[in-house]
């Protein structure tokens, strides 16, 4: 080990020695007990599923051909005016592909610096343009994913895949799949890769790459955070509950995009202006709750957190350094999956300094069912939404 490496080691040891261990928390112990109880049950389910799934397994070698998007559904972001290659002077980096979607112009680009590949985005709006970027370390086997949300329920996911991926398919919970167009990386980037772009649907589960022989060579799960704030704009919302907070009327609204896939939104009125926040915070799956948070009526002292809880959760609270905020839980409207209910809470907005906030669900006996940090978005909530 040379002197530089010795110094690095020594300084890391010094820095780490400042960290005082803490005991295993009561909540963690409780979660372990619940998890161990749950694992026992899950084991039974897996065995049962394996027994039932024999027939399915025999057919699993035949990969179905991708099916096109449903009528009226627009996954291909290029729309009618898309071009590749492209030019967009306001876009940072090399322009990959551009297009128009529901009247909004957009462009995706890329930059590469010290092996950090940044996917850049540009959206034209009536009020001017908005831009952004997300960066990841680039490698020759890397499948990149970056999601940008210009608002209005659009989530444009884009990234790069290795050149040996001949076909890239987006898989969905329904079993349907959608083949994405691949755009060779502009020469100026100097990488052997193709790019893709897709308006990612709420039920997207994975991106899968196949080589020229049809063999699956790459798979990346799409988690809820990658689906951003996509919401089904055409769905008819039902008012779950309503109320007033310091003169601001609000409504918690919801719809289902499928069994166990609730979308929930909060609308409020300030003066003559109505504002709606909406999201589908995760398909229910095996999670005890899903949530979204955001600003509320332009206020700086309070934010709003809303979402759904499943049957085991009887009580829900947001615990911050400033105290505990109980969520208001309401039954799902008639016709909804009756395994979950909806909630809304208005915790205090984060103050200055390090933020500490957890979201805790309790069962009827007061045991912790699940707890999760309110993601870093909590401290940015004057302008953010984020998943768990």
């Amino acid at each position, binding site marked *: 080990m040379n002197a530089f490496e010795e110094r690095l080691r020594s300084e890391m040891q010094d820095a780490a020695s400042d960290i005082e261990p803490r005991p295993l928390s009561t909540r963690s112990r409780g979660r372990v007990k619940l998890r161990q109880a749950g694992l026992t049950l899950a084991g039974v389910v897996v065995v049962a599923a394996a027994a039932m799934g024999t027939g399915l397994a025999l057919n699993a070698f035949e990969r179905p051909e991708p099916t096109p998007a449903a009528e009226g559904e627009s996954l291909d972001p290029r729309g009618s005016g898309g071009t590749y290659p492209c030019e967009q002077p306001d876009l940072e980096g090399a322009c990959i592909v551009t297009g128009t979607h529901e009247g909004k112009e957009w462009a995706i680009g890329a930059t590469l610096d010290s092996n950090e590949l940044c996917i850049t985005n540009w959206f034209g709006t009536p009020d001017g343009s908005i831009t952004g970027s997300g960066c990841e370390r680039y490698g020759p086997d890397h499948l990149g994913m970056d999601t940008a949300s210009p608002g209005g329920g659009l989530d444009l996911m884009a990234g790069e895949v290795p050149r040996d991926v001949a076909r890239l398919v987006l898989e969905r919970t329904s079993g349907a799949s959608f083949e994405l167009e691949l755009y060779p990386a502009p020469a100026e980037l100097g990488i052997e890769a193709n790019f893709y772009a897709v308006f990612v649907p709420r039920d997207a589960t994975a991106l899968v790459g196949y080589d020229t022989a049809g063999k699956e060579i790459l798979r990346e799960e799409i988690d809820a955070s990658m689906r951003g704030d996509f919401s089904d704009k055409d769905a008819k919302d039902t008012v779950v509950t309503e109320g007033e907070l310091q003169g601001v009327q609000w409504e918690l609204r919801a719809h289902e995009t499928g069994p166990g896939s609730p979308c929930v939104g909060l609308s409020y009125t300030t003066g003559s202006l109505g504002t709606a926040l909406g999201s589908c915070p995760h398909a229910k799956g095996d999670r005890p709750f899903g949530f979204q948070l955001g600003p509320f009526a332009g206020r700086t002292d309070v934010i709003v957190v809303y979402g759904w809880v499943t049957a085991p959760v009887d009580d829900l609270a947001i615990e911050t350094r400033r105290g505990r905020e109980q969520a208001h839980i309401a039954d799902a409207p008639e016709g909804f999956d009756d395994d979950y209910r909806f909630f809304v809470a208005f915790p205090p907005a984060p103050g200055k300094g390090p933020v500490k906030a957890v979201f805790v669900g309790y069962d009827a006996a007061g045991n912790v069912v699940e707890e999760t940090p309110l993601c870093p978005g909590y401290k940015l909530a004057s*302008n953010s939404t984020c998943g768990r």
Partner: protein
Amino acid sequence: MAEGSRLEAVYRQHGPAATRLAYLLTGDADLAHDLTQEAFVKLAGGFKHLRSADSVRAYLNRIIVNLSKDHFRRAKVERSYLASRRAERAPTTDPVDVEGRSSMMTALEALGHRQRAAVVLRFYEDMTEPQIANAMGLSTAAARSLLARAMKTLRNEMEGDER
């Protein structure tokens, strides 16, 4: 030994080291404690698959590396979302106490999380390249390459600072 007692014993033995590793990977003490608690909840679910004390440590390291990766990935998505808003209203990274940091630690924190993980595992955890590869889910060649790029970046940063 009951599972609960075993977990307590393992936490006493490995918890402090896991927290320190999480801290070096994230640069955030509160987050490091949170990740460690989460890691032990996950670890408890995998007890029956672990054969020895050594494998507990290796398994735990891998969980910590994955949790920190997940954290940074979520943060990246959120950064991307927020960056797409023209009016930037807030910093997009977690607050990190930088007071009192050495220039070396500051340079380390400026690395991408994968490079940083490779450096921490190599020089703090004393792992070999195959062990780093295993902990990070990479090939050995990829781990070697990642580490080499990280060290180059660190040296460049340090040389720049000390000029």
